């Protein structure tokens, strides 16, 4: 299955690369209204899906390969998004409603006189990008260090990460916290001098997202293919045994967790300029759980499947929330239930096993250890 997955991964990367080149061409170089033309709103929509796909790959790295069901990835995603949002906010400059060259509108509105320290430097793009990586990464490092060291595993870890997300969710709602409160950050004008409204910027952001997805996939693939990755999977399957063999299990987990959080942060940073807003609802615990279902639908431990799952579920979401808003939550709820019950390996796993002559069985070690856990 592994080689087939690798081959599938190559196809996936190739498709993404083609999309990264072709979509901007079709969007910009063809006349509007022609059969080949992709209108900017669609480019933006698919760019958004690609960001979700990066998040799904990040989550699959820790869940599919390390057994950590993090319900905090939505928070890492949102933190990356906020870092980007802060840069975009500073770029508005004097073009805001209150025309204050330094302070974003919401600070003027709150009658603040000075830029808070947390905002310093965000007018400088490289610094903002550093923060996109550093903030989620450091949070994951601190959080994971404590959690893995004390051997918090399984559902306990999920619950603790969810509590972290929930705490951030509430904190960002506060005006005093200094990140726009309830309304979040919005009314962005341009990124690196390019207007966010123009079709070419949208196309460029789409390509950037596609390339970022390729990179995320490539990094995850490299990690998993390495000796380190083998140990990671061994931790997933038999954590105690690995510990008894002398591996520092917590370090393996921590590395994967931090890398994954950074990926999620980058996904968030690419997401924000495409949707034009970042607000505290991105921290909602429900978002993190939804990301887990993308991975589950596509196929846990396949990376490609996670990305496909993210795109497929979000495509369905866009369609159903438009066509039958009443029924979307039923659909999403059923998706959770049915996927876990009947598609434990996800769509991709199903497709791969169906074509395999002999079905792939899970390593018995999992069952033994989890049985003992109870």
């Amino acid at each position: 299955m592994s080689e087939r997955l690798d081959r599938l991964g190559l196809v996936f990367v190739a498709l993404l690369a083609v999309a990264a080149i072709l979509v901007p061409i079709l969007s910009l170089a063809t006349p509007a209204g022609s059969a080949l033309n992709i209108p900017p709103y669609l480019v933006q929509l698919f760019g958004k899906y690609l960001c979700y796909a990066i998040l799904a790959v990040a989550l699959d790295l820790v869940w599919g390969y390390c057994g950590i069901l993090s319900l905090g990835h939505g928070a890492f995603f949102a933190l990356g998004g906020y870092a980007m949002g802060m840069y975009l906010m500073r770029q508005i400059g004097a073009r805001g409603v209150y025309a204050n060259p330094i302070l974003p509108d919401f600070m003027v509105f709150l009658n603040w006189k000075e830029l808070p320290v947390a905002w310093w430097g965000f007018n400088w793009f490289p610094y903002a990008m550093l923060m996109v990586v550093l903030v989620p990464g450091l949070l994951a490092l601190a959080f994971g260090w404590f959690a893995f060291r004390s051997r918090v595993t399984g559902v306990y870890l999920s619950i603790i990460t969810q509590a972290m997300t929930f705490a951030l969710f509430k904190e960002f709602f506060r005006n005093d916290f200094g990140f726009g409160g309830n309304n979040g950050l919005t009314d962005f004008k341009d990124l690196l001098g390019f207007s966010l409204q123009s079709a070419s910027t949208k196309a460029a952001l789409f390509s950037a997202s596609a390339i970022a997805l390729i990179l995320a996939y490539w990094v995850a693939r490299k990690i998993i293919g390495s000796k380190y990755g083998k140990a990671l999977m061994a931790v997933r399957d038999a954590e105690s045994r690995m510990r008894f063999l002398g591996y520092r299990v917590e370090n393996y987990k921590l590395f994967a967790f931090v890398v994954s959080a950074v990926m999620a942060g980058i996904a968030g940073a690419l997401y924000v300029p495409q949707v034009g807003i970042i607000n505290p609802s991105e921290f909602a615990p429900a978002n993190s759980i939804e990301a887990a279902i993308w991975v589950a639908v596509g196929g846990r431990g396949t990376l490609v499947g996670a990305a496909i799952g993210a795109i497929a579920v979000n495509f369905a979401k866009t369609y159903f929330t438009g066509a039958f808003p009443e029924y979307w939550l039923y659909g999403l709820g059923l998706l959770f239930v049915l996927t876990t019950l009947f598609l434990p390996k996800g769509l991709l796993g199903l497709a791969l096993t169906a074509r395999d002559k002999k079905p792939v069985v899970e390593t018995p070690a999992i069952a033994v250890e989890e049985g003992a856990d109870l």
Partner: protein
Amino acid sequence: MWIVGQMDRGTPVGVRCRAVLSSVLALLACLLFAGAARADALDDTLAKFLDDKFSRTEKAIGELAAEAPPQAAAVLEALGDNRLLFDQADHIVAYKTTAGAIINAKTGETIASAAAFKKVRVNNAIRSAIEGSIGSLTLANPDPQKRIAAAEDVFKTREAKALPALQAQLAKESDPQVAEALRLAQAAIFASNDNTSTKDRLAAIDILKARGDQDAQNLIDQLLQKTTDPAVKSAGESALTSIHTRLAMWGAAQDLWYGLSASSVLLLAAIGLAITFGVMGVINMAHGEMVMLGAYATYVVQLLLPPSLQNWSLAFAIPLAFLVAALVGVAIERLIIRFLYTRPLETLLATWGVSLILQQLVRSLFGANNKLVTNPPFMSGAFHLGGLEITTNRLWIIVLAIVVFVGLQLVLRATPFGLQMRAVTQNRRMAAAMGISTARIDMLAFALGSGVAGIAGVALSQIDNVSPNLGQGYIIDSFMVVVFGGVGNLWGTALGALTLGIANKILEPVIGAIQGQIVLLIVIILFIQKRPRGLFALKGRAVEA
């Protein structure tokens, strides 16, 4: 009637009747005699109005206040408003009601024509005499509750004019509660008056110190600004510090009460979760929706019950909520969770899906708007306990939480089902080897845990709006309680709920609600460094990960 009671059981009916009759007659005679005596005094008093002289009128006012006949208040008010009339020829004093009817002040009869009457004249001296007298009238009211209310009025207004009446009443007061209120009122007047003797001031400080609330603190502050006397100053200052500590203690007690209240809600919401998590090792993300279903069950009961039974709504709501939530819980366990038995993480996702479906289902059935569940009469209102303000509904929720906790402990400790459940919690495979049907226990434990969540919903419906996402607000805190308390023992859950609830309420005023939660989260993360499986972890090889 006590005469009847004293008589022999064998007395013939006729004799008994006669005895009753004679006692009733005696009672009537007594009443009439007393009435006559009072009427005479009243006649004399009212006659003073007939002269229409200021000095006589003032005297009459004083007598009315002292005698306090039932019509005194009406007469005095009428006098103050120029509505008191007299007919010198026929010796009748009457007053005009605000509605315009003319009432004989003595007999209370309505008088048809006002032609013969003149108004009793009043001047400022009389007006102020009336004001003082009306206050003292209520101070002398036969009902002790009214006397206390009047004394409290004086305490608030600090009306120096009320002092003589106050002191007069205090001298003859027999009810200790009323006397206490009167003394307080007197102290308030002493404290706020400019020219009071040092002795009175010191006495006032003592009394105010004993009262020890915000009002007393303000009064002593006032007094300290007026006085230069070192004795009063030092007494006042020491009283102030004593009041400060007292207030701080009551404040802490109030925070503790809020914390207890929050803890009871947390406990109700978390205890079912601890059971299902303990027995099956799976997190039921739809647990919050069981709470929500319980709240909606209460709402439905309120809708369906006829008005005559509304007071008993909770007696219907609690069993119904338990049943509904338990049935839904069993359905979730039978249809979903048992197939995911070795995959706890996926159980989390599947039950999250169930929670989405249940929320949307309730939204479709009842609408997305908040529903209001009214408290039954015995659960509404509040009362004071020392410096504490205690809302009745929260008190009952604490009682409910204790009852549920004790009930669950009994089920776990004293029933075969409880024994088997504990066995499965401790070591599932060993329990199965001993012949316990673990599948059955799973199902029943899930029913129990969900049912208790339903009861939590009944409690929440009394203090919170009932909405489809009611459960979401409590679920994460409940998880924290379980993570903190561990699953080995319900005492862990209780202790976890108490700790988190009280810590939250103590932190809230200091650093704000959200920061408080964040601090608690960090504390929990640090805590599980030391105790990864919570306060009350199961010991033994089976739980080693």
